């Protein structure tokens, strides 16, 4: 095999959240449909939670891409921790109002309340890594959603979510929560293979046997981020051997040794 095929295969697994790289898996597509439906329901807030690397960001990214053409939808991949900055960004995006000075919550909520909805469609604000927002900020987000002039989709880590749910006021809101789980071994196999096939790396895709997938699943525990990192390093090593020592990658299957080497490099194995 040419070294370039390993290079191409490697680059597929660069850990970037890009809606184009979204892989359709049966379970994930079902969850995605549930999320999409909940956006259309008259819910004020939708909560998306799960362990890191379960695909929350990818979900939001995919959702944003799909609905932004039909309605106003904004995705904040990184949290805007400064309160004034947060409201100014919202004012800019939702109403195209630019504030040069400070904008506090009272001022902004007045603006929101006074605005009329265009064709009764509620704009959607998607907040990734919402566990980083402070409790008071979350309270203000809740109050904004209470106006029914803006809808929030919040993605956060499961551990943080438990703290938030514990708060009574948050529990009283009408909201939907969707849980994302780690991939199973078979899902991981489809995920890796589909990713490679998307860029026509059929040769490398066929190199993944169930045995090697099981090992990867054991090492990453079905975490998509970790899997991306591991497979990226794996193809990096393959690329190196293809250039410098092709004898070491003679087999038609992914070598256990190289998987372990990649795991060592990414820190999934401590030695």
């Amino acid at each position, binding site marked *: 095999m040419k070294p370039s095929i390993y290079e191409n295969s490697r680059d597929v697994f660069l850990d970037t959240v890009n809606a184009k790289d979204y892989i359709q898996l049966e379970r994930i597509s079902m969850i995605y449909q549930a999320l999409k439906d909940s956006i259309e329901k008259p819910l004020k807030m939708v909560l998306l939670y799960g362990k890191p690397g379960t695909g929350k960001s990818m979900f939001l990214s995919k959702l944003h891409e799909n609905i932004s053409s039909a309605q106003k939808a904004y995705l904040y991949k990184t949290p805007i921790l400064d309160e004034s900055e947060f409201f100014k960004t919202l004012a800019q995006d939702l109403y195209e109002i630019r504030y040069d000075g400070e904008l506090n919550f009272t001022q902004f909520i007045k603006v929101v309340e006074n605005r009329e909805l265009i064709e009764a469609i509620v704009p959607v604000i998607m907040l990734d890594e919402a566990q980083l927002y402070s409790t008071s900020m979350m309270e203000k987000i809740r109050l904004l959603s209470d106006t029914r002039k803006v809808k929030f989709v919040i993605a956060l880590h499961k551990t943080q979510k438990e703290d938030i749910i514990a708060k009574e006021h948050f529990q009283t809101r009408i909201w939907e929560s969707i849980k994302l789980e780690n991939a199973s071994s078979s899902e991981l196999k489809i995920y890796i293979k589909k990713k490679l096939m998307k860029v026509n790396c059929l040769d490398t895709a066929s190199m993944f046997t169930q045995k090697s997938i099981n090992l990867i699943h054991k090492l990453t525990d079905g975490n998509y981020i970790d899997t991306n990192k591991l497979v990226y*390093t794996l193809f*990096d*090593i393959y690329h*190196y*051997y293809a250039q*410098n020592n092709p004898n070491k990658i003679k087999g038609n299957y992914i070598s256990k*040794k190289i998987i*372990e*080497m990649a795991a*060592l*490099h990414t820190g999934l*194995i401590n*030695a």
Partner: protein
Amino acid sequence: MLNVHELENRHKKYKLKSYTPYLIILLSITIALVSISFFTLNYFNSISKSKNEAAEQKEVYTKNLETKSTVEEKSENISVPIEEKKRIEVQKKQEKILLSPSLDFIKSMESQTQMYKKENENFKTTEITEKKMQEAAKKVKEPVKKIQERKEEIVLPKIEEVKESITVAKETSTIDIKRRDEETDIKHVIKRFNVNHSPALSLFIAKKYYQLENYEQAYNYALATNELNNDIEASWIIFSKSLVKLGKKEMAIETLKKYIKHSSSSQAKQLLDEILSGKFK
């Protein structure tokens, strides 16, 4: 940039590390197995050794018994040729090797038999028929009697020694074993008696039964002895004693009187006096 060389080294270390617990488990299992097999082998060896030792002891013991019994048999035969006597001596020598405690006894017996030999040789220089032998034996009645008395003395310690050797071999000293051996001894002697009809053997059996308080059997064997040889004093005495014990006092007195008339035996006289005075019951 990926340092594959360094990664390979790390992988080697990782593999070594991951195999270490298995190696340790394997090593400990091997050590355990080796030690277990070592101890079990030792155990079985010790068992087989002790078995062998026991077997050896048994062999020695049976040999002793055999030699002893032959010695007894030979020594009881008064009119034995010189060649046979030599054989007895050889066997006695064997006995010396096997049973050191009976050494003194053998020496004393030898000295006694030598005395007898000299006397006996005088009879054997001329060609003597069996009848003549008996006649000669009558003449030398007293020495014969003496020898028979000695035999009585000899036979008993020997049996005791056998008993001792049994107890040493088995490392147990219960009364049951002794009794059994006495009974088996008697049975053994009876067997031999049935074969060669030696009056010495029947006398021995009679004495043994008398000791065991089986007076009926003692009477029977004393009678058998008298039939074979009516000049054995000890036999008459046992015969009379058994009669007394069986409640036939008068018959005993009559028998003794007849015998005293015939032989003028002092022992018989003494016994008669005891019976008459009621000392012996």
